[in-house]
């Protein structure tokens, strides 16, 4: 028994262990509490990154809970079906785990400073670790019911964190909306899973993918599964909870909620590519995803422009940016059945879309953290009340500029790298959609110019004469994310070749995922 074999279990087990230890041990002393929070998250991130390294270096991993050996997916006496809960971690899961590890660590680091003088911190960090555990579980599991459980863990922990600082009831209102909508969505997801179980007698995604017949019930189950997931990732007709929850949650939590939404997107893509793949009418469903993406992009950015609350504005941009990812992968799905078209533009569009997931998590996290820093020092969140902060908060201003230019897709930053791939390939697929994508990018830049000008520019305001730079741990968290944003813009080829391309291939090769559990055919 070696440690390296058990990383898939540890990466969920460690945050769960620390989450339940924190409210108990945190009572002893506040240093112990803070120490546990940061050590728990550090260990989780380190294990997550190591697991991702294992997967990228040696190929996908299956981990069976409770079996004689962790890689014994099919017990000898089961008659050829896997009966235990299996974690199937392929390159796409590993890609998501990298994002979760980085953003989760930075959120915790940032929270240590912002929550320093407030009550109930032990439970706050416990919930944050639970949220991390839930999101990691969602992207690593290969079992549909297990996925539902992790989905509910992440929704409930997320909603509780959104409402945690009651904020005159406003945060509770946002939390109530988020919890109510995601629970209804979760129940529909469970119904879809039950329909699939009724037909195939198994919950393992690989087994279902192998036997899928695409009966009418399968289509119903698919719709019952993908609609909640589109809701979870905030695609436009189901986006109403995003601005409320993102704007009222503490900044560090918002940065991580972005990642938690992307886990919903992971499940969406997993359903299309791994479970159904070419059995489905990929052109129709591809266009459904593309239309969701285009609507999200356009409506998100047009709703963002008139906003006056800085975090609400950024939340609408988050909706708009998730449209790019849906667009890229939607083009990949629509061209899946056509080999020539897939090689010509579909694959590049998917690489762009998946790469954008990572870039978005980094620069959007950075932007929410800078907005949080401004609110932390000034106590004001409306753009009309802010101004002249560039004189006192130089580092925050620089980080904000990096984030804003990255989200608008300006060259030396990572947003440009993924958006350029998307423009190029989507233009070959359908020029009209590529033009919409570029227009949305320009509107994004315009909107962030407004935010930049009203927050940082102008003369020093008398009411902010006492304002000073935020504490070092907040600056570190923002600095690391900013550094990664710049690195992603300067060396996109290294990231694309080593992380993004394996993830895209893992999605496209359905047989690999099945072979991981069922053994190679």
């Amino acid at each position, binding site marked *: 028994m070696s440690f390296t074999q058990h990383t898939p279990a540890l990466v969920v087990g460690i945050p769960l262990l620390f989450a339940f230890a924190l409210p108990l041990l945190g009572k002893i002393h506040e240093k112990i509490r803070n120490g546990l929070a940061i050590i728990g998250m550090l260990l989780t991130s380190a294990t997550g990154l190591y697991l991702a390294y294992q997967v990228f270096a040696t190929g996908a991993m299956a981990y069976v809970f409770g079996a004689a050996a962790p890689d014994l997916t099919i017990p000898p006496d089961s008659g050829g079906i896997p009966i235990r809960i299996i974690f199937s971690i392929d390159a796409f899961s590993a890609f998501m785990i990298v994002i979760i590890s980085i953003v989760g660590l930075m959120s915790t680091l940032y929270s240590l400073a912002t929550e320093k003088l407030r009550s109930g911190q032990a439970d706050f960090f416990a919930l944050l670790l639970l949220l991390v555990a839930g999101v990691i579980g969602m992207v690593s599991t290969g079992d549909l019911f297990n996925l539902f459980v992790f989905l509910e863990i992440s929704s409930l922990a997320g909603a509780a964190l959104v409402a945690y600082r009651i904020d005159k009831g406003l945060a509770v*209102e946002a939390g109530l909306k988020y919890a109510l909508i995601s629970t209804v969505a979760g129940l529909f997801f469970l119904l879809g899973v*039950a329909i699939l*179980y009724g037909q195939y007698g198994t919950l393992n995604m690989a087994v279902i993918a192998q036997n899928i017949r695409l009966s009418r019930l399968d289509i119903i189950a698919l719709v019952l599964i993908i609609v909640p997931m589109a809701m979870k990732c905030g695609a436009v007709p189901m986006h109403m909870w995003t601005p*409320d929850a993102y704007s009222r949650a503490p900044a560090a939590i918002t940065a991580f909620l972005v990642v938690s939404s992307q886990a919903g997107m992971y499940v969406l893509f997993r359903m299309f590519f791994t479970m159904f793949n070419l059995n489905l009418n990929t052109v129709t469903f591809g266009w459904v995803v593309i239309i969701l993406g285009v609507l999200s992009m356009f409506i998100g950015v047009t709703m963002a422009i008139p906003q006056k609350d800085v975090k609400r504005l950024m939340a609408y941009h988050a909706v708009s940016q998730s449209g790019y990812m849906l667009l890229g992968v939607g083009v990949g799905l629509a061209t899946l059945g056509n080999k020539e078209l897939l090689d010509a533009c579909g694959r590049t569009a998917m690489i762009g879309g998946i790469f954008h997931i990572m870039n978005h998590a980094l620069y959007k996290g950075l932007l929410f953290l800078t907005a949080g820093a401004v609110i932390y020092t000034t106590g004001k969140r409306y753009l009309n009340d802010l101004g002249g902060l560039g004189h006192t908060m130089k580092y925050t201003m620089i980080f904000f500029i990096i984030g804003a230019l990255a989200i608008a897709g300006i060259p030396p930053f990572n947003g440009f790298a993924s958006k350029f791939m998307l423009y190029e390939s989507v233009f070959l697929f359908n020029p009209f959609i590529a033009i919409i994508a570029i227009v949305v990018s320009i509107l994004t830049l315009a909107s962030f110019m407004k935010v930049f000008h009203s927050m940082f520019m102008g003369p020093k305001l008398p009411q902010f004469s006492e304002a000073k730079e935020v504490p070092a741990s907040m600056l570190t968290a923002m600095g690391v994310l900013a550094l990664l944003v710049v690195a992603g813009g300067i060396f996109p080829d290294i990231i694309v070749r080593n992380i993004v391309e394996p993830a895209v291939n893992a999605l496209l090769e359905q047989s690999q995922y099945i072979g991981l559990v069922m053994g190679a055919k």
Partner: protein
Amino acid sequence: MLANVPFIAFALIAIIGLATMIMRKNIIKIILGLGLLEGAVNLFLVALGYRQDGIAPIFTNAPSTKMVLPTVQAMALTSIVIGVATMALLLSFAVFIYKKYGTLNSDSINRLKG
């Protein structure tokens, strides 16, 4: 026909739950509608797993080795536990909303908009 009764009951309860959530204004009632929906899905799960003359997989008592895999029952149990957690969280939100806003009417809980 008789075998379909649980599924018809599931559909009825689920529709009543959804209708409650959509048509009622009081958030406690909305949350209870969610509870109905949850119960309906659990009923669906258990009904799905029922096998005529099925034997529970308790090795010492089973007359033969043909037993029913109790996956859906386990799923329903887990889902009930999750439902309790959800209910507790949502009702505690309702308490806070009432404390801060002084109302439970969902028409007046609309301070976040735009």
